[in-house]
Structures are given as structure tokens and as C-alpha cells.
């Protein structure tokens, strides 16, 4: 049975590629800034891989809360999440999509292929059961209140149960056994043989260099993809990527540098699209340690423990100048640690201000008018214009009397340093795919294993009010109420500054000017963001 499906899929593929070559103009060629590593949707959540996989597979709900394979969902009670599934959906191989496929996908997510965990396994650990209610209703049951589950499940790409052997009905368990006698192998997934989703595009070929060719899925439940054919390549060097656009190799490239964009301004053949993303760039300050690594004061204390110093640091930075001069206007001055436009955040919080005189006064008042020495750690190959921003911050801190030495290191070295808590002050970015509370719940809450709070509290920050608000947020399934707790916690964080919010990064795409691009805030590049004008 399965083999027939495969043949059918192959036939569809060949047919549509024939179609595509006859209508060559409807090909979209995109250049990613990093290479997708696999077409197994559960192996990696890294942006390029997830971007590619989104063409092939769909989740129940999109990352921007649009209904995909589920038309709606609700919490039946504190521990039961119901999804109502779309009817009339078929997989690329022709199999019909039902609730069983959701259970199967959950099983596959928990199943350790070659003994290796998939990306959502810990996020799904509170899930005790995934049950078929009827063909188009499925229920997730959790051990305890787990309000972020719908957010987490946005990464659960739905696969077709037809690819495995099992005895009906599937019985979910968190080892992924589920009564399944045979899963497709890792190799079958990685080669693309099992790349069978419901997405707008079917996979034609995938090479381990990350190159992928896709063709339009003519049977998609919506009116389907915008393009007959999509070719995804990856070019790491931004200059070469941009040159590829200008040379006509690509129709669209992601993450051009601000500088390159200026060269497009005079050229009518190209334009660019910039969309505020969910990524905040900020500094993390070690406020809780006796001695913050790399930060010293004349009197031997940890100056970062003093709120006045932290306020001074925040006031010393001219965020607007950074946004205008270094980011070419393609960033938004921060008012808090999550983007103010991210769901759940309070959009009315005022932007953080620049006042070097007050900063100096605060430092003097705290007894640190001079004598603070600070190492500022920053990855040199990670964030848009990251090292330049870091140099600007070093300038600003220097001007209020802090002696800064800037340490820019490759991401691998930087990450190891951060893990070893070698940094008193470092620059970092957080993408907030799961809502406005994500970063602060990880970075500023006291460690709470049960509620999964404070996992990466490199600030060593502990505040009772903040923790109380976060603990309530962590178990609240009512959206309004949960937003209230989140905003209360955020207010504490912005008042107390265990870190310094800087700006919200924008995602940028440079493309042929005959294309319309509706950018996404989650830093992914998807063919259907793009349409011919």
C-alpha cells in the first residue's frame, strides 16, 4: 500500500516539475543565510531547517496563531487541550488526514530514533495522553496545568501515520512506542523519501549541503502555494548572498546586511522588505554574584549589584542612535525584554531613555563615579551588526566613566564561556517564539524545576515579586489572566534591570522588485510570504 503511495507521490512530483519547467517564470529561488540540516521535521528547530520543513509539513496552529490543520483549539479544563481538526486534508501521498495522524506524530516526536531524542520531548513531558476523540477531534491531556502547551505544539509537524506499521488504534505513550512495530528509519527521513506532510510544497530533492527543490502541492487544502517551484539554497557570506541576488541567481535573499540594502536603493530592479521580528537584543548583567566575572570596582564590590549602576548603564546607551546609525533604522528601540508588539506584552510601556548626565549622576551617587572596569562579552558572528553595536555600547559606557574592554568571540567560544558563567556582562538575543514571557521566565526567574522557570538565569537575579508573578503565569491557562501576570513580572524586570534591553531586531529580505513580500516576525523564510506583483 505504502509503495503505491510513494509511486503516486513521485508521479505527482514529476508531473508538477514538468509543469514547472513549462512555466519557468513561476519559480522562486531563495537564498538562506544558513543551511537546513535535515528534512526530518523533529530533529532540529534551528531556523533554516524549520523554514524548509514548513514548506513540506504543517502543524496544527501556525507560529502566528493562524489555524492550519486545526481549525480551533480550547482548554476543556486545566489539563485537557482539545483541537478541532480541519476536514478534507490529504497528505502528499494521498492519505487522508485524521486525528490518528496527530497521535502518530506525537508518538514519532517522543520516539528516540537511533536512541536520540527529538526536539520537543521535554516540552511534551507533562503530556500524559493524546487521544482520538473522533476523526477530527484530538485531546491532549497533561499531568498538571501546562498553559504553554499550545505554543510548544506549534513545533509538532503532522506526519502521516501511513508511513509506519502499527495496530489500530494507536495508544500514545511518552516513549513513543505506541504499539508501533515499525517507524521509518532516520535515513528514510533524511533522504526525503519519507518527507510526506500536508504542506503547500512537496519535496523534490534534498542534498546534505542543504539545497532543496520543492514543487507546488496541487492538492493543498487552501488554494495552495504561490509558486510552481521553489529552490532553496544557502549562502553564509552576506556579501556573496547579496551578490547572488544582484547577479540574478536568486529572487530573494534573507538577512542582507543593512549596508547592502543601501546599494539597492538606487536600483529599480530590487527592493527590500523589513519586518519587526520577535528577537530582542539585550545585555545580561550578573547582579547577584559577590564578584561579577570581568567586572571590578575600586572598592572591590560588584557594582552591578547596585540598582543605581544598572539604571545608569541603561541611561548611558543612546538606543535611538544605534537604531538609526548602525541598524539603518531597521530595528525598534526597546521598552522591555520582549518586543512590545509580541502577544502578551504591554505595548504601552515607554521606551527606555538616553540621559548620560543622569547616568553620571547616578554613578556618582552610588560611589562609582570612576573605577568601574568592565569586560563586555559579545559573539562576533551571531547578531546583525552585533560587534558594531557592542562597540557603540562600549563608547557610551566609556563616556559615563566606565572602563570597558570589549571581547568579541566566535559563537562557539562565546557559548562555552556563557555556560561556564565566565561573563559578568554579555550581549545576547532571544527570539520569543513562544510568547512575550519566554525570555524573562528563563533568564530572570529563580530556578523552579517544576514550573520550568529560571533555566538560564545568568544574571543570578532573585526577586520575590517577580518570582511570584512568574509562578502564577506558569500555571494559568486563561490568556487574559496570564498576560496580566506576565506584564507584572516584566514591570519588575524593567524597574530592576537585571539586564539592559537594547532593541528589537527586524528581519530583512532583499528581493526582485516585482515581488511582494509579507515578512514574518519569527525569522523564518517561507516561499508563500512571497508573491508575484
Amino acid at each position, binding site marked *: 500500500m505504502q509503495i503505491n503511495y510513494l509511486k503516486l507521490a513521485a508521479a505527482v512530483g514529476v508531473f508538477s516539475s514538468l509543469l514547472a519547467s513549462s512555466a519557468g517564470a513561476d519559480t522562486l529561488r531563495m537564498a538562506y543565510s544558513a543551511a537546513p540540516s535535515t528534512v526530518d521535521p523533529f530533529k532540529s528547530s534551528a531556523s533554516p531547517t524549520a523554514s524548509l520543513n514548513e514548506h513540506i509539513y504543517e502543524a496544527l496552529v501556525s507560529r502566528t496563531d493562524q489555524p492550519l490543520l486545526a481549525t480551533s483549539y480550547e482548554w476543556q479544563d486545566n489539563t485537557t487541550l482539545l483541537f478541532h481538526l480541519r476536514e478534507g486534508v490529504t497528505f502528499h501521498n494521498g492519505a487522508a488526514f485524521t486525528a490518528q495522524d496527530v497521535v502518530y506524530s506525537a508518538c514519532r516526536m517522543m520516539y528516540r530514533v537511533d536512541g536520540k531524542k527529538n526536539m520537543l520531548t521535554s516540552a511534551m513531558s507533562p503530556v500524559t495522553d493524546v487521544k482520538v476523540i473522533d476523526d477530527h477531534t484530538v485531546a491532549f491531556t497533561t499531568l498538571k496545568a501546562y498553559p504553554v502547551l499550545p505554543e510548544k505544539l506549534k513545533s509538532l509537524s503532522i506526519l502521516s501515520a501511513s508511513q509506519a506499521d502499527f495496530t489500530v488504534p494507536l495508544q500514545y505513550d511518552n516513549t513513543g512506542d505506541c504499539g508501533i512495530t515499525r517507524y521509518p528509519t532516520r535515513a528514510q527521513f533524511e533522504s526525503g523519501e519519507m518527507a510526506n506532510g500536508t504542506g503547500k510544497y512537496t519535496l523534490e530533492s534534498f542534498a546534505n549541503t542543504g539545497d532543496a527543490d520543492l514543487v507546488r502541492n496541487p492538492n493543498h487544502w487552501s488554494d495552495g502555494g504561490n509558486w510552481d517551484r521553489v529552490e532553496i539554497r544557502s549562502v553564509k557570506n552576506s556579501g556573496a548572498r547579496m551578490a547572488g541576488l544582484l547577479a540574478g541567481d536568486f529572487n530573494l535573499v534573507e538577512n542582507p546586511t543593512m549596508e547592502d540594502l543601501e546599494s539597492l536603493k538606487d536600483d529599480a530592479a530590487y527592493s527590500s522588505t523589513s519586518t519587526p521580528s520577535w528577537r530582542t537584543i539585550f545585555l545580561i548583567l550578573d547582579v547577584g554574584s559577590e564578584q561579577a566575572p570581568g567586572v571590578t570596582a575600586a572598592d572591590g564590590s560588584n557594582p552591578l549589584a547596585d540598582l543605581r549602576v544598572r539604571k545608569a548603564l541603561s541611561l548611558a546607551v543612546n538606543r535611538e542612535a544605534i537604531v538609526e*546609525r548602525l541598524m539603518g533604522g531597521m530595528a525598534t528601540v526597546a521598552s522591555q525584554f520582549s518586543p512590545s508588539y509580541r502577544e502578551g506584552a504591554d505595548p504601552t510601556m515607554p521606551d527606555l531613555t538616553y540621559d548620560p548626565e543622569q547616568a553620571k549622576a547616578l554613578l556618582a551617587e552610588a560611589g562609582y563615579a570612576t573605577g568601574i572596569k568592565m569586560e563586555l562579552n559579545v559573539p562576533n558572528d551571531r547578531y546583525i551588526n552585533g560587534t558594531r553595536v557592542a562597540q557603540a555600547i*562600549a563608547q557610551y559606557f566609556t563616556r559615563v566613566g566606565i572602563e570597558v574592554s570589549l*571581547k568579541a568571540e566566535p559563537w562557539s*567560544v562565546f557559548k562555552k564561556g556563557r555556560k561556564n558563567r565566565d561573563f559578568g556582562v554579555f550581549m545576547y538575543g532571544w527570539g520569543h517564539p513562544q510568547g512575550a514571557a519566554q525570555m524573562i521566565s528563563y533568564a530572570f526567574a529563580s530556578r523552579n524545576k517544576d514550573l520550568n522557570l529560571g533555566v538560564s538565569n545568568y544574571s543570578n537575579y532573585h526577586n520575590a515579586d517577580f518570582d511570584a508573578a512568574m509562578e502564577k503565569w506558569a500555571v494559568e491557562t486563561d490568556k487574559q489572566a496570564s498576560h496580566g501576570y506576565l506584564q507584572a513580572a516584566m514591570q519588575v524586570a524593567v524597574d530592576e534591570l537585571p539586564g539592559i534591553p537594547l532593541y528589537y531586531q527586524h528581519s530583512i529580505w532583499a528581493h526582485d522588485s516585482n515581488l511582494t513580500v509579507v515578512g514574518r516576525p519569527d525569522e523564518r523564510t517561507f516561499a508563500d510570504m512571497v508573491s508575484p506583483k
Partner: protein
Amino acid sequence: MPMSTIKRMSNILWHQYKTIFAHYPLALMGLVGVGLFILVALLAPWIAPQNPYDLMTLDIMDGLLPPMSKLGTGTTAWLGTDAVGRDILSTVMYGLRISLFVAFSAVIVGTILGVLLGLLAALKGGWIETIIMRAVDLKVSFPGILLALMLLAMFGTGVDKVIYALIIGTWASKARLTRSSALSEMQKEYIDAARLAGLANWRIMLRFLLPNSIAPVLVMLPMSLSGAIGAEATLSFLGVGVPITEPSLGLLIANGNDYLLSGKWWISIVPGLVLVALVLCINVVADRIREHNNPFLQPRG
């Protein structure tokens, strides 16, 4: 040292200089160029309009200004500024300083190390030679980027770490070269004579082998120098070079690359041209010296 010796030495040098460079205008130009670059590098702190290391005077509001613009401090940026507001002219002068310092230190130390190990290998033979020569092989197959990254991860960023990486990159070829010329030298009778006379190994090495087999290495020195400048630039381009707050020419080029397409050519082109000019001058001199030392390469006609 008595006056007469100095006089004699300088006479020899002058004579050497004349035979090498007289009648070779290109090589002479190269030599003058190298001299000028070194002078600028040495005098940078006094002649540069701005101190690009002083974060107090830098301002991103002065960033990306085209050549001839006025900075907030009132100085004129003759060659424009980069994104963080550094005057390109000043930064290039300081960058020249870093590039030359790094390359000179690395080549000098690397060469001394390489020559000594090469001599040792030739003289001792046996397992010592095996170890040294296999270490040379090892170095050849070890990528510089990984080496630099390892040093950076272990000891942090810094100009000195780049020098260490380059020393490790330099010594091997010198050791190989010295060993092979020392081996030829050792076939000669005077070494046997010295051995028979009961001279200690290290004396033979320093007294006879060193002066007689060092010529090919010395001839290669300028080439190594320009090679080291290029290697440092590449490491900086790959993000494992000198610190961003003390940019070398290579790092300046890498920085400016982002702006090449945008019409802000001065950020990358100026340091790029200076680097190429510097390396070119050194290479022209190097060529001439090599030519001079190879009797077969005398141009005829």
C-alpha cells in the same frame, strides 16, 4: 664596539645595498615604500589625526562619513569614517602598526625557532630529527583557523594570541628549509674536521652550520613577512584574529566588506589598498633579494 668596526660594517651594508638595489628602480621604490610604511606605523600615535583606540573620542554619530567630512570633535576625516566613527586615515595608520608588529614578531620568533630546530634535526639525526620533521608534517596539515580558535578559546582574544598562532604557522617551513641546507652543508669536509677536533655539537651548530646554512632562510624572510601579514588578515577575516577594538589592516578590510556593495567604498578599499601596497613593496624587495642571491637569476641581455 670600536668605531672602525661600525664603519666597516656600514661599509659592507652600503655595498650590499648598492649591489642589490642600484639600477633596480622598482626594487628601490619597494624599499622606500617599506621604509615609509614602517615610519608611518612607528609614528602613528603622533601623526594620526585621531586615536582610534580611545573610546571617549569615538562617536557612532560620526559613523560612515564620506572622505573630507568633519567629525564632531572638529577634526577632518580625510578618508572618511567607518561605522563606529573611527577616522579611516587614523585607523589605517594604527592598523598598519598592528599588522607590521604582528607579522614582524611572528616571523622573527618563528624563524629563530625554525632555524634552531632545523639545525638540531640535521645535526642530531635519529629520533630527534624524526620528531622535529614529523612535527613539521603535523603543522602542515593543521588548519590555521583551528589553531587560532584554540588559542582564542584557551587564552581569550588578543594581539599576542594571533602572534602565537602565526609563530606556529611560520616555524615549520623554516625548519624544513634549514635542515635540508644544513644537511648539504654537513657533507662538507670542514664539519668532519671540526668533529674530529672534538668540538661540541652545539658549537659546531652555532659556529659553522648556522652561518653557512641560514642564507636560504634569510632570503625567504621578506616573503615570510608578507605571508604573515596576509595570514593575519585572513584570520581576522574569519573572526579569530585581533580584537575588534584594535583592528589590523586585515580586520579593517573584513569590516569594510559589508559596505563594499553599498557605495561606501572607503571603508574597505583604503585599508585594502594599503595592505596590498605594503605587501607588494615587501615582495618586490624580496624578489630582488632572492634574485640577487641566486646566480642563475641574473637578468641578461
